């Protein structure tokens, strides 16, 4: 049998993914995290009497802390499995990716384990985050004179 005919059989028995449902769950949970974040910014800026910009840094630190704590306690992976991109796209996903890699390679020691593996998943995010920040920064500079 030709490879393309075999592919037809494979495609015929491929499981239907519930894409609409996944997207809706991700949208709602991701949005909910956005609400929590906004709430935290308001609280911090009101009670600590700081600017909204400073309060957002506090908010990010809080979310990172909560996410890594949940990863360490062992149930964040189950939430990710359910909420998918709703938890992966926000900063919680980034924190989770580093924490889970760190925990996984702890047994191999601080240098060859945690040190060389903690960015296993997050490394791509950082690299392409920096690259795209540079590209969009240049576009902004060239088109709008850096305003």
């Amino acid at each position, binding site marked *: 049998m030709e490879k393309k005919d*075999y592919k037809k059989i*494979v495609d015929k*028995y*491929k499981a239907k993914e519930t894409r609409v449902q996944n997207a809706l769950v991700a949208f709602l949970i991701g949005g909910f995290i956005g609400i929590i974040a906004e709430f935290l910014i308001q609280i911090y800026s009101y009670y600590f009497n700081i600017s909204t910009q400073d309060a957002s840094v506090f908010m990010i630190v809080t979310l990172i802390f909560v996410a890594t704590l949940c990863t360490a306690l062992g149930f964040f992976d189950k939430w*990710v499995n359910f909420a998918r991109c709703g938890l992966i796209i926000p900063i919680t996903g980034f924190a*989770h990716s580093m924490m*889970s*890699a760190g925990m996984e390679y702890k047994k191999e020691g601080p240098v060859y384990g945690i040190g060389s593996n903690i960015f296993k998943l997050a490394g791509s995010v950082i690299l392409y985050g920096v690259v795209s920040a540079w590209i969009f920064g240049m576009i902004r500079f060239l088109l709008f004179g850096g305003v």
Partner: protein
Amino acid sequence: MTFKFNNVFVNNTSTVTGPYEKEGPLGNKFDKSYDDLYNGEKSWEKAEVKLLEESIDILLNKSNKKKEDIDVIIAGDLLNQISASCYGSAKFKVPFLGIYSACSTSTEGILLGASLIDAGRVKNAIVSVSSHNMASEKQFRNPTEYGAPKPRTATFTTTGGASILLSNTKSKVKVESATIGKICNMDQKDPNNMGAAMAVAAADTIYTHLKDNKRDINYYDLIITGDLGVYGKEILKEYMMSEYGLELSTNYNDSGTMIYDVESQPEVLAGGSGPLCSPLVNYSYTIPLLEKGVLNRVLIVATGALFSPTFVFQKEPILSISHAVSLESVK
């Protein structure tokens, strides 16, 4: 390549599993099951070593043999450098052969051990395999705590160790013949749909085995593939029909769909996989039925996806292989 054996028998088997297998439909048939994936060890890899080692210990106990009686241990697993097999077999100080054939390691081991016995080179051979869900997730995919969502065609690596003692002294189950499979390539590149990559290898081996032995597909009471899963099983049935005109009907099943209850254990997705999947089902379910005489002739077709993350990232297809072993009930 098919050959027949004259005096190779299954003396005894042993199975040790993790918690997910215990919750499955065959849960009460295993020799030992752990409730924790670490089973008292400090890492996933060490846990797998322990599972394999324990399966050999239990096997020696069950068959009243001392390690001095064993002429060779043939073992394989999924970890890099088949390290679980090496570390797990070390304490026995028995001549050792390490093998790798992904999830078809068990039948490769049986056919090698049976060949050694049949040729009169050895009297007793142990064939062991192990796999560990978390250890393979760590090695092949993402960190275990990351819990990356997977599509439904993905399978769930079984946890545990299983061993079989082959011997030249007569018992109730005979190793009748075996077929060495060929490496197949159908240009499948999705590591989350290994059943699709392996179905072609299973079909090729089943067809070759039947042709070489001049047998009909209904000759066997049960043809049992390794770890194709829910979707791979359907692919195999349709491919087998359209390519060879052979119908796999009521005498066909797949270990991957038998080891877990796909309905009540949704985390296993399309079913079980790993080198352990086929032996767990066969040692705890098929061989006891052969011993009782409920089944007379069984063809075990363990299926292996020769999956390398490096090669898949380099856009190469996932190769697959399948070895078959035919077992017969001795009257």
